[in-house]
């Protein structure tokens, strides 16, 4: 009985955190009227999409014991690629495919370098952070890439005529989250990701092809980052090579707030999604409270530290 309560608390930790944050913003007079409304939450969900989809890929990478710092640059690069393809008149489907492909390609290079050269992911992706950003600016000629109307532009809008339907981006993020959670939990690939992050030596001993697995993880995560780039493009309606600077840190923070361990082997998709929501709710709430942006930054920074500390307390009590 006591065990069950403990398990529930462990699993529901980030979720309780989310409820606390929502409750806090629902109480003050300034926000009471607007905060706890469907329309506001529709906005929050839409604002979460890019970080959430990035966090799907990042969860896989962090659970496997790695890290990827090049996500922000990848998102900028893929959104420029997408804008160029649309500008060239090749149609929506080719644009989407090109973005997923180019994201996956950057991941493939990252994973190949990490596994092949046996270098730490931190260094490799710190390097590709610069390379991808530079490539984006080069492709875009250091300007924004504009194009005429495209269906892509409608996928992140909150102002649709029916008012209640969630935008495409939210649905895509939801479906992908469910799919990724299932893959991580129930497939050979997913269990091997956990095994790799939990103990690489054991994984090797048990005959898991660790080199190939690492390349696959970064490539697949790269595809997710390409998709995040798609929704970045959809939101801005132009390809901007200077967008999403530092976004990788938001994404990593979401995964960590969600209970994943930077040393690998621990983490869930549900947790990461809630982590992404907690940050979006904090931003949204702070704005409604009329707090300046520097105040939001301080709060989110503190929340990361508190979340990990509370998580450690919980783990400590467990063993």
């Amino acid at each position, binding site marked *: 009985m006591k065990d069950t309560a403990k398990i529930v608390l462990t699993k529901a930790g980030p979720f309780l955190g989310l409820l606390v944050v929502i409750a806090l913003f629902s109480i003050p007079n300034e926000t009471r009227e607007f905060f706890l409304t469907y329309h506001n939450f529709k906005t929050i969900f839409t604002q979460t999409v890019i970080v959430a989809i990035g966090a799907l890929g990042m969860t896989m990478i962090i659970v496997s014991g790695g890290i990827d710092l090049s996500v922000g640059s990848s998102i900028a690069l893929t959104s420029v690629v997408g804008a160029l393809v649309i500008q060239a008149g090749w149609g929506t489907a080719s644009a989407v495919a090109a973005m997923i492909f180019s994201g996956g390609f950057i991941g493939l290079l990252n994973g190949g370098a990490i596994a092949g050269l046996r270098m730490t992911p931190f260094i490799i992706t710190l390097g590709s952070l610069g390379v991808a950003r530079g490539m984006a600016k080069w492709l875009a000629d250091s300007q924004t890439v504009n194009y005429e109307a495209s269906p892509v532009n409608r996928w992140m809008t909150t102002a649709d005529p029916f008012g209640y339907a969630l935008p495409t981006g939210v649905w895509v993020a939801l479906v992908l989250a469910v799919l990724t959670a299932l893959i991580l939990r129930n497939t*050979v690939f997913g269990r091997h990701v*956990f095994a790799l992050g939990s*103990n690489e030596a*054991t994984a*090797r001993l048990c*005959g*898991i092809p660790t080199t190939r697995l690492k390349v696959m993880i970064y490539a697949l995560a790269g595809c997710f980052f390409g998709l995040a780039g798609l929704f970045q493009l959809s939101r801005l309606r132009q390809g901007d090579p200077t967008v999403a600077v530092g976004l990788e840190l938001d994404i990593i923070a979401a995964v960590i707030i969600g209970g994943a361990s930077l040393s690998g082997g621990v983490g869930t998709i549900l947790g990461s999604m809630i982590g992404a929501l907690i940050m979006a709710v904090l931003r949204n709430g702070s704005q409604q409270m009329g707090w300046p942006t520097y105040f939001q930054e301080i709060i989110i920074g503190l929340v990361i530290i508190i979340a990990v500390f509370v998580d450690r307390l919980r783990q400590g009590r467990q063993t």
Partner: protein
Amino acid sequence: MMADEASAALRLTGIKKSFGATRALRGVSLQIAPGEVHAIIGENGAGKSTLMKVLSGAHRPDEGTMELSGRPFAPDNPHDARLKGVAMIYQELNLAFHLTAQENILLGAESSSLGWVDRRASRERARAALAQLGHEQLDLDRPAGSFSIATQQVIEIARALLTNPKVLIMDEPTSSLTQADTERLFAAIARLRAQGVSIIYISHFLEECRRVADRYTVLKDGETVGTGDMAGVGLDHIVTLMTGREVKDLYPRVEHSAGAVVLSATAVASAPRLKPASFELRAGEIFGLAGLIGAGRTDLLRSLFGLDRRDAGDVVVVGASAAADSPRERWAQGVGFLSENRKEEGLMLTLSIADNLTLTKHAAFGRFGWIDGRKQRAVAQRWVDDLRVKCRDASQPIGQLSGGNQQKVAIARLLEHPARIFLLDEPTRGIDVGSKAQIYQLIGELAGAGKAVVVVSSYLPELLGLCDTIGVMCRGELSAIRPRAQWSEAEIMRVATGST
């Protein structure tokens, strides 16, 4: 040189120390005179390390007294022990490789004024310490990592000398040295002895102990079983003291007989730790590998399994293609490996029992890459019940289990795979007696079912009780393979310590 009552540099009386139910030290007494080199001898697990940790302040004894130069000695921690006059040189080097030799020697004891390092004073002290060892020409400005292992050890000893210790403890100082370097170390020891420093010398190599030490103390099962002058004592006598023990009925014999050869290794080598080793393993055979820690037994197993690169030699698993030799392919050939390092390598502590147990064959639990979790847990639960693993259920994280139960799951991985050749590295290390007996039973049953088993163990009674054939390794060389009947503990120790 006898340690006389009044002038002993160090005197230990009735030292006892327990960890939970394990009585590591059951009453050790020791007396060392100034300028005496005293060898502490014993098998793995005899209590040498615990005794040294008590002496160097890392552990506090439960009972007994220690005196240093006639005054009570009760160090709070290794730093305190060092300040009071007992310094220790560990088997593993503890150097900051990027810092210079001088900085390493003075680490934590820098000459300074107002926080600024006084380079001239530092240099003089480092030189003085090196001069004590006869190494005053050593380049103090080179990074420590750029020196040979032997010179790194000199730097480490020089650091210990800074506090003018009365007693210097050396734990297996020659385990990574060449013969020539060992000679140089002995010369340094002779100089220190002449300066009145007492040295406690721990080594598995009895010949070495006889050369360098004045007196010896033999530990067995945490007790002093003999002490005396080195001069005139036969190594046979010391070996008898170390091993005088009977094999009990802990090792149930399951009827089995050796069949056809299933694995043959020919001149398998991996420099510098493993010299060319050859042996044949038969179905239904339990083959034991004896030797001291660092003798190359683990290196041999890892080379066979493809975990470590091998420089030369062939491993043929009968019925499989010869080219394949990565761990992945070894599992496919029916070869299973149990790591000696349960926590660092053997298991994934954050994952469930079921995941740990089925990691080598996840694909077998579903179709198209999707794992049937229920089936996986059911299989794991069956092993949990069979082997009486104490746990909540098969989905509990394995890190929450006791060592013995973790080890049962680690072995169950090989059983479930299923392997036909079992490479078991220290299968009973650090687990309770009940689980040990169960694992011995299991190994016997495996041989009875026609599986081939290789057991590496540092515990001789275990090897003698369990194995059909035993090979002994010494300094990377697999020198003697004989049927069990031709071995005794004394004989194994003689070959393992390179005594002649």
